[in-house]
């Protein structure tokens, strides 16, 4: 639409939890042209009761920059009306939120693809690392990167 404002891009790295409803409202505050909103929330699993917490570390500055780069690529590629990506850091316990991605678009397939694209790239190129702490008091060490996350990128190439 001629004269439309640029699509909102919300990127944050924070220790505190996020509010999906509030972030969604911010994203579509500009108007009623969005027909589809897809939100992805990534949570800390309890791994069958074995995990007591995850500790999330990031590269300040680069983490935000990489997420923003991915979000801008998604806006262009899927003609999104808005995108939000918020990643938490610090100590996170099972059942708590880790990451939120919200994509708004005129139609559903663009919104699904936009959110999925951002998550796939965020997993493999945003500088965050997870360390596991187990319920028995032991330190589980750093989570290893999964080949399946690299494979997931192939669908976008």
């Amino acid at each position, binding site marked *: 639409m001629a004269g439309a404002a640029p699509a909102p891009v919300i990127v944050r790295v924070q220790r505190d939890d996020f509010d999906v409803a509030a972030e969604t409202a911010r994203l579509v505050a500009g108007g009623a042209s969005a027909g589809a909103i897809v939100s992805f929330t990534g949570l800390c699993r309890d791994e069958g009761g074995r995990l007591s917490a995850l500790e999330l570390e990031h*590269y300040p*500055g*680069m983490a935000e920059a990489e997420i923003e780069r991915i979000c801008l690529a998604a806006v262009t590629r899927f003609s999104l009306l808005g995108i939000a990506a918020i990643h938490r850091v610090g100590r996170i316990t099972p059942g708590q939120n880790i990451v939120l991605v919200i994509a708004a678009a005129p139609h559903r397939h663009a919104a699904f693809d936009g959110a999925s694209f951002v998550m796939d790239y*965020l997993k493999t190129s945003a500088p*965050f*690392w997870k360390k596991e702490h187990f319920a028995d008091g032991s330190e589980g060490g*750093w989570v290893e*990167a999964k080949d399946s996350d690299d494979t997931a990128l192939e669908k976008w190439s």
Partner: protein
Amino acid sequence: MTRLVYFAWVRERIGKGEEDIDLPADVTTGADLLAHLKTLGDGYAHALEHENVIRIAINQEHVEHDEPIAGAREIALFPPMTGG
């Protein structure tokens, strides 16, 4: 002086999160940097043992190991990322 920053188990094994170092003139690429750092002590050698899994960012952008490091203000070394 070049600022080096380390994350996750690279940081833990080296024993610090950042440092400023003078690089020899023959250290011109990311790969050269890894080889040089491994001579600085056991912690470095352990952290950078498997060079192929170490990721390098120059001025907060991902680069390949053969990328020239001339002019870098900040070079980061870290393991494969596991965010999301």
